């Protein structure tokens, strides 16, 4: 799971942020809620930072009434492009792998 996840974490994070801007833990929670329960906190935060450096995300700080401020991320045009590419690649890839592995396990 972990190894598989690494390959698609960028796409997953981009997809979550594309739905709605979010701060680190918010993105993490939505990923977990979507079923990626084993995802590591730091992996998500590091990925957000890397995507931001690559220009796929924009960020802004929202002060909090109580407690520390939150750093929100939003997707950029470049990020949407990236996500589109990765979606396409993922669909092609899963199609290929599904063909290879067959569909013996119907429940999956």
């Amino acid at each position: 799971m972990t190894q598989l996840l690494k390959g698609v974490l960028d796409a997953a994070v981009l997809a979550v942020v594309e739905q709605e801007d979010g701060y680190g833990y918010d993105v993490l929670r939505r990923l977990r809620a979507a079923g990626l329960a084993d995802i590591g906190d730091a992996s998500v935060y590091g990925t957000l930072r890397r995507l931001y450096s690559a220009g796929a995300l924009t960020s802004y700080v929202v002060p909090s009434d109580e407690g520390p401020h939150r750093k929100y991320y939003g997707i950029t045009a470049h990020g949407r492009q990236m996500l589109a590419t990765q979606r396409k690649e993922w669909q092609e890839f899963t199609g290929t792998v599904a063909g290879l592995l067959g569909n013996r396990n119907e429940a999956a």
Partner: protein
Amino acid sequence: MVTTSTETLAAHVRGYAQAVRLHLDDLGPDVVDDLTDGLEADLTDSLLDRTATVPDAGRSPSAPGSPSGGVGSGAPGDAVLDLAAAFGPAAEYAAELRESAGLPPRAAQANRLARRWALGRAVVVAWELGSERWAHAWRPLTSTPAWAGFRDFVRSLAPVWWVLRGWAAAMVLMYPFGGTPAIWPWSTPGRIVLLAAVVVSIQWGRGRWLPRLSWAPGLLRVASVGAAVAVVPLLLYVSEDRPSDVGFSSYEAGWSDGYNEAQYSSVSDGGGYGDDTGVWVDGMQVSNLFVYDRNGDPIRDVQVFDDRGRPVRTMTAQGTAQTWTVPELPGDWFFQPAIASDGRERWNVYPLRAVDVNDVEWVPDESDPEWVTEVPRPLTGIQPTTMPWPFLKAPTDIPSKVVEPGTDETGTGDAGTQDPDAPATDAPAGTVPGGDRPASDTVPDEDPAPATVEATEAD
């Protein structure tokens, strides 16, 4: 559980975030900031979610947070928050963070350093191992809320340390130029250096003004350690009372200073300002003089001059403005001059009288032509007090008749031992009726009025 004090939670979160940053500190402050900005908020939210879900973990198996998530799992009410149990060790968290952010792992950096300096690597590895073990050994203590509170308290003292560090650095910097350590230097350049050093130290402490060079943090660390080492002896040095310090109670310290100096020379070599003025006996500054007549009886209001006709003043300009302690008399005292019949102050009239520190007002000094300095004078209705005599009666009588060399006076055993060639002025000690002890006769009643003496030509 939200009942866990929010502040405790925040303190733990800050501590954990700080530990994570420490494991990233080879990346440079900008990257670390960028990577961990908002980390506290994320950790806090995550913790709050966990505390909310852990008690009913069985009901929602898909809830985030592993079952071992260490928040409140043991004692829900006042659980000790161990973030390392919830998020894993800070080192691993940091490693995951940097890896997912596409940054090189720390080991690679350490290796690069190691290839350059074998010794450096040994030191770094030993240090990291040692500090990990140290931190681990203390975890039972350091993971308690009380410790977090203590650490917060100590952290809040950081500005005090910044000031102290600047001061110590200034003292060390000025030393080669002859600067004497002092809380507030005497010289203007010294003061400028001190202010500059303190401001720089504070700014560095706040993370400003540090040159953006790879060795800057190292320099800061070395300077801090050096200042920490230097600050103790420096503080000890300046906290030692010195006779030249205004407002200083000079008897006790003067005695010990004088005693120490007397081991080496009978004359003070004048270590600082004011040390070579006034009257000194065996290296100890004298505040008052007591004169006894030839019968051993005390004499009041004696004018004392030296062989050049100069009035002998124990109270220098500085001495008059400072308090003194007096043997066998409690309190701090300002010595007062005698007033001559023409109204002028005479400081060479002994014994000097003194006024308690609480009974003075500060008035312009009449001898100062510009009237800018102020001197302590007794409040209206207060009379200066006579200081206690060292002896009620001097231990030795001096007969007025000069003993002829070789003549053995009746009743004196001393005369025979005198050098026959001694000059007549070196009169040998005569009869000693009272032995070496002070006589117990009472001193004649004192005149409560301030001393009034005739003005003399000599001044």
